[in-house]
């Protein structure tokens, strides 16, 4: 029914007709999910962020003005806002969903893997490996022990024959460098909000 309409038209129609919003959702749901998946590297978080984004889009659809800017641009603006909230607080907001009375959805094991597939792991993996290779030996070791294996700083210090303070310093420096490299990596979207 709405095949020919633009995103903007759909949003305007959706003020009165929920089905128009349904069409809008179908067009962009997976893109939004992919967007979140690649930036959070967390399938559950990505799913929730998608849900919250569309809930907020529905709640504020009347504020959309069809002035030529694509409806999808407006939608991703909301997505960016949700993402920054996630980065700051470490959790996904639930206000819009609560307001609409929507229930909390669980991510099944199958969905989890499927969402993971949206993340281009190959590319991410290559980027991380490359970044790790630029770290110094000490930093790489400290990071692996602490971040990958999850050991306490006391253990790390013992294993690396250094003080705890030194161990902490190495890990934090390594993470910082890693973060910078990943952000600078062309084509990689981890941590980027753009």
């Amino acid at each position, binding site marked *: 029914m709405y095949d020919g309409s633009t995103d903007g038209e759909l949003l305007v129609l*959706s003020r*009165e007709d*929920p*089905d128009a*919003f*349904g069409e809008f*959702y*179908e067009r962009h*749901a*997976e893109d939004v*999910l992919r967007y979140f998946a690649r930036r959070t590297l967390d399938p559950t978080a990505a*799913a929730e962020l*998608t*849900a919250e984004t*569309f*809930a907020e889009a*529905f709640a504020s659809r009347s504020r959309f003005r069809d002035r030529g800017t694509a409806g999808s641009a407006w939608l991703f603006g909301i997505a960016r806002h949700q993402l920054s909230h996630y980065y700051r607080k470490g959790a996904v907001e639930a206000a819009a969903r609560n307001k*609409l*009375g*929507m*229930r909390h*959805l669980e*991510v*099944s094991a*199958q*969905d989890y893997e*499927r*969402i993971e597939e949206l993340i281009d792991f190959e590319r991410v993996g290559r980027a991380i490996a490359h970044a790790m290779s630029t770290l110094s030996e000490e930093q790489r070791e400290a990071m692996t022990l602490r971040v990958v294996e999850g050991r306490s700083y006391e253990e790390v210090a013992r294993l690396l024959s250094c003080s705890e303070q030194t161990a902490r310093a190495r890990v934090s420096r390594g993470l910082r460098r890693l973060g910078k490299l990943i952000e600078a990596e062309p084509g990689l979207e981890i941590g980027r909000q753009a």
Partner: protein
Amino acid sequence: MDTKIGYLRELREDLLEAAWRESLTPERKRPKRRGVRRAFVGALAAATLTVAGVVGYVATHQSDEMKRLDAGSAGSNADLYARDPSAAVPSAEPQSAKVPGLSYDSGDVALREQAVTNSNRTWSSAGAGASQGNDSAQAGPAPSGSTTSSSAALPASIDNIIKTGSLSVVVPKGDFQSSLRAANDVAANYGGYVQASSTTGTRSGRLTLRVPADKYEAALGDLQDLGRVERESSNGQDVTGTFIDLQARLKIAEQRETVVSRLMDRANGISQVLQYRNLLEDAQLNVEQLKGQLRVLRNRSSLGTITLSLREEGVAAEDAVSNPSIGSALKHSLEGFLRVLFAVIVGLGYLIPIAALAGAGWWLFRRVRRSV
């Protein structure tokens, strides 16, 4: 929806369900609109009151102007009587004072009227400065009353104006005493007198002079020559109407007196005599009251009043410094508050009919449009 991810499908269902729920219960939108509406109504009410206040302010000021103009031209009866405590308010005359069939001798009344005419001068003739001789006070005995008709008893043209003025003059240092004496002399020169005099120290004081109405301007001029005029104001109150009114009433009262005394002469029996005597006393009292009022009026208009404030250079004017008190400040603020309230209420009085008319016109207009 074609997607492998079940989550997305479920999410779609939940979204649409919530959407349909919302479309069926639109009340959630109302609180927003109600808030907007309330703000709109509040703003409209505030604007209306402000406009009403402005309209009321303009309206009350205009009416004040009109009052001031009126007071200048016409005589104000209440004002006259209020000033002189000895003049009592005349009692209401019964309309049927004249008894038909009885002729009355209005000779005495006519005589008195003539005297009144002669003692009055018109305003214009006094302004020209020509002194028409001071034959004020009583004229000689007029011809017998029977030749004068009742219509001539009322002088043809009376210009009765009560002239009052105030003057504030500053004299050179050391000249206060001599200027004060000179002011006293002015009153005497023009056939007037000093009604009141007071001094504050040896360098400033006040005089109230009475001078004949036709000499008013001349006397004022002489007083102004005493020194530098700081302030001057004169006021002429036309009391011609009051004069005519009083005279007419006096005539009626005197006729009544005559009638009653005649009746008493023909009375039969003690009881009738007593009745008539009471009536006669009432009538006589009335006559006396009216005569008293006429006397006051004549005195005021035949003699103008000048209030002179005299002070030496360097002496502070009387009301130069008056420290405002908190009490007066509070009074002023209360006055201001009440004035604003007053203005708003007056303004609403103007606005409500206008709004009603506009609303009716608008409604009619819409009706006409719809039918077309």
